[in-house]
Structures are given as structure tokens and as C-alpha cells.
């Protein structure tokens, strides 16, 4: 892959070593910049949103009560459902004129509901909503598993000392949950930067380039325009971003533990 990124390889199998030219081209490529910006924006919203929703769900469902299994199952179901079907149904729900979501918004009194997937401003939020919906059950499960490891005595002790629910959460749950929160953050980050299949199916990067993300740009250049060399250069950048972010998170986690 690294070698390929230094060539101008194309579908005819001819490749020629051209050094760093591909990377120089990347710097001046407005589509690449758009893709990078969209991916970053996506990550900045999707990661905290999914984190908070998943943790919230896990806390609500970390008790024994009637129907808890049902709720857990429901939350997890989107994660195992086929992405093509998901994209199809959400595209219909988001339909600007007669879609149920906009009908609901109008019923609530919103006069100009967003155009979602057909609007350049709202397509990225639409993708983020679907992706959060899809993954929150999975991360909820990781949080639930983490919550099982929090010793019950600690809660008892905190309650005895008169700590409020919020204080118990802040001083007992969160510290004990640190390995899980770290894992979830790392997984979410890697997942966010590699986001692809949903975008490809739901919006295909559009309208315009409003949802173009890095992975998809690799796909476009590589498999639609057969510029394997140039696409590999983008792939190297994506790989580097994932690695750097993960390493930073590992170092940060180590510091906090010490």
C-alpha cells in the first residue's frame, strides 16, 4: 500500500514510481479537503453523541425490572440489521415532503422542517443520526458489561454516606468504568474515521459533496476512476490518522492511570 501510494498505478497495470507527487496533489485537491473536513465533523459529533446515549441507556438498563431483556434486545437489534435495508428505510423516513419524520416535526409546529438527505446542510446530520441509532446498542452492551464489574459495596457505601445519584455516578461509576470508557472511545474513534458503507448507500457522498468522507473518496478514486496510486495515498493518510488518534488516546489513558 505504501509503495502503491508512490506510483501512478492505473487499471491497465502500468505503474511508474513518481515519488511524493500523489501527496503533493492531495494538498491541492479540494475534494480531499472536503472529505477530510466532513470526516472530522462527523467524528466530532458522532463520537460524543453515541457515547452519551449508549452510557445513558446502559445506566437505565443496568437494573433488574420487568421488561429489561426486551429493552436490551430492542436497543441491540439495529446493530445486527442489514445496512442496505437500514439505509432504504431511513431514506424514506427522512423524505422531505411526506416522510414521517418531517410530518412529526410539522405536527410539533416546525414550519420549515429540514430537507435531510436531499439538503446539503442536513445530509451529514441525517447520516450521523442513523449511525448513532445503529451503534448505540452495541456500545450500550459494552457499557453494561463494564457496569457489571463495578462492586456493589461501593454503591452501598456511597449511599450510606448520603451521596446523591449524580455524585454516586461521578465518583463511583465513572472511575470504575474507566477501562470500558477508554475501550468505547477508541472503538468509536476508529469507527468514525472509517465510516463508509452507510454513507455510500444512503447518500453516496451527496448531495454535492456534502457527505463525502475519506473512505468513500478512496473508493471513488480507486474503483470508480481507477487511480489506484492516488487512492492509495488517501488510504495512507486515513491509516495515519487512525493510528495517530489511537496512539494519542493510549498515551492519554496511561497518563490518567498513573
Amino acid at each position: 500500500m505504501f509503495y502503491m501510494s508512490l506510483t501512478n498505478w492505473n487499471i491497465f497495470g502500468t505503474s511508474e514510481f513518481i515519488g511524493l507527487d500523489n501527496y503533493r496533489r492531495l494538498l491541492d485537491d479540494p475534494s480531499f479537503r472536503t472529505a477530510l473536513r466532513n470526516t472530522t465533523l462527523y467524528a466530532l459529533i458522532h463520537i460524543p453523541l453515541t457515547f452519551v446515549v449508549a452510557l445513558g441507556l446502559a445506566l437505565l438498563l443496568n437494573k433488574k425490572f420487568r421488561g429489561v431483556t426486551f429493552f436490551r434486545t430492542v436497543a441491540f437489534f439495529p446493530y445486527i440489521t442489514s445496512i442496505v435495508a437500514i439505509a432504504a428505510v431511513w431514506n424514506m423516513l427522512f423524505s422531505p415532503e411526506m416522510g414521517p419524520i418531517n410530518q412529526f416535526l410539522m405536527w410539533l409546529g416546525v414550519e420549515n422542517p429540514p430537507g435531510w438527505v436531499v439538503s446539503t446542510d442536513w445530509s451529514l446530520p441525517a447520516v450521523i443520526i442513523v449511525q448513532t441509532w445503529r451503534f448505540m446498542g452495541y456500545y450500550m452492551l459494552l457499557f453494561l458489561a463494564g457496569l457489571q464489574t463495578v462492586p456493589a459495596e461501593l454503591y452501598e457505601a456511597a449511599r450510606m454516606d448520603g451521596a446523591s445519584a449524580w455524585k454516586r455516578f461521578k465518583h463511583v461509576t465513572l472511575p470504575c468504568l474507566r477501562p470500558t470508557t477508554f475501550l468505547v472511545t477508541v472503538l468509536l474513534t476508529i469507527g468514525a474515521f472509517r465510516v463508509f458503507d452507510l454513507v455510500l448507500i444512503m447518500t453516496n457522498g451527496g448531495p454535492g459533496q456534502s457527505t463525502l468522507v475519506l473512505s468513500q473518496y478512496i473508493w471513488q478514486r480507486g474503483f470508480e476512476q481507477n487511480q489506484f496510486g492516488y487512492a492509495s495515498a488517501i488510504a495512507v493518510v486515513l491509516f495515519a490518522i487512525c493510528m495517530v488518534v489511537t496512539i494519542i488516546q493510549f498515551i492519554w489513558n496511561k497518563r490518567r492511570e498513573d
Partner: protein
Amino acid sequence: MTQDLAPAPADLLTPAGDPAATAPRPRAEDGPDAKTIVGKTLGYLLLLIASVGLLLPFVWMIISSLKRNVDVFTNPIQWIPDPVVWQNYVTIWERTGMSTWLFNTIFISVVVTFLQVLTGSFAAYGFARMRFPGRNALFMAYIGTLAVPWQSFMIPQFVMLSNWGLANTRWSIILLQAFGAFGVFLMKQYFESVPESLNEAARIDGLSEYGIWWRIMMPLSVPAIAALTLLTFVNTWNDFLGPLLYLRSNNLWTVQVGLRTFIGQFASEHAMIMTGSVISVVPIAVIFFLGQKYFVEGIATTGVKG
């Protein structure tokens, strides 16, 4: 039942913020006071809203799949299809290659799952029980591959498989998915919980390492095998990008790729698209509800110990 309910009315009348009413009571007899009742109701309400949000897309999918195309988008929304068009489920078989797609998907999923469990457990046995130099480093490197985005190496991989003449065959997908670090990780976690003394005893009795793997470890690891089987099957069934890239002829397509193409061609046939979606989801839903426990266990163990 009556015992549980009896104190409730009295507690409801107690002002929630009055510490004198609740504080002196010993913890052990703590009944549902006003605060917890409000909290519980709120919790239930939140969960109810959440589940409506989570399930609504599926409900919409099923309802729309039974409607006439003109009834899909109406204002107000038609929640009960009228008339109910079961015919959609017949039409889709006639108009698309659904049966071919389903066959391909089942074939690929079954073969991949079988190979994954085989290679995964085999490699996991090596990592869990054999001692050889560089074992831990090799294992870490293998697990590290999970963190690398597929998108970043899909091009060289595609070039490699094309050179081998495997592109546009089922074998490309099977080969790509037959080995996975996730399966090795899952199985290794489980194998390590099996006491080592069992292996020792078997070794003394003259069983080979292969024999131990097959006769001792595998039968003891049924839950892990079940989890891996279900997760792999579902993943392969839902895989979209791999088949999209490698399976170009439409007699090789999986349900996902086929459905996607159908949507591309007949974007305005909303009811039919939903019918296809339901067909692609139902097998997974059935498998999920039957083996729910294993899914959850599989993800919980690998997730947390990772």
C-alpha cells in the same frame, strides 16, 4: 403482590423532599418511596420513548412492505395498510433474482462461518496453549489488524486477488472472510478459562495436540463457538462492501448487493423496496432472537477484556 403494593399509597402522600419521612428508616426495609416511584416512572418513560425510536424504522418497513406503492407516503400517515398487499412478497420473487441472491448469501455465509470457527479455534488453541518464541508479539500483531480500517488496504487486496484470478468469484469473499482476528481473540479468551490440568492429563494419556483441541477444548467451548458462529454468520450475511467490490456478475450477487441494485433501478417503488428489505432482515432477526444470549456474551467478553 399485596405486600408490595401496601406501603405505596402512604408513601405517595409523603412529600418527596421531606427528609424526616425517609431518612430515619433503615435501608433494609426501604420500600418504594415517592422519589423512587417518580424516578422509575421517568425511567420507564425514557425507555419507552427510546424503544419507539429504535423500533419505528422496522415497524415502518413492515407496514410499507404491505402497502400499495401510492399508500407509502400519505398525509396523515396510514398506520394500517389498506388494502393489505401480500402480493408484494410474490412479485419481488418474480421480478428480481431474489432466489439466486438468497442462495448465494446462504452459501457464502455458511462456508465462511464454518471456516472462521475452524481457523479461529485452531489458531486460538495455538495462542492459548502452545509455547513458542514470539507468541505474544504475534498475537498482538494479529489483534492489531482489527484496528486497521479495511478501506486503507482494500485496494492492494483487490489488486492481489485480481492477479490470482479470484475477483468475481465466490471464493474471493470466502477467502477474505475465512480468517479473522476477532474469532481468534474470542476463542482464546474462552480456551484460557479451561483449566490447564485437563490438557496435561490428556497429554499423559497420549493424546496429540490436535486430539486435545478437537476432543477436549472444542466440546468444552460450546458457548464460545456458538457466539462466534452467530456473529460471523450475521456479519457475513450483512456484508455489503466486500460483495459489492468482488462480485460483479449478477448471478453471484448476495441479497445486500442485489437489493441495493434494485433500489438504484426502481427508486420510486417504495413498497417493493421495503418488501425486499424485510426479506433481507427476517433471517437475521430469527437467528438473533434464537441465539440472543450468545450474541450478548460474545460481544461482552471480547469487548471488555480487549
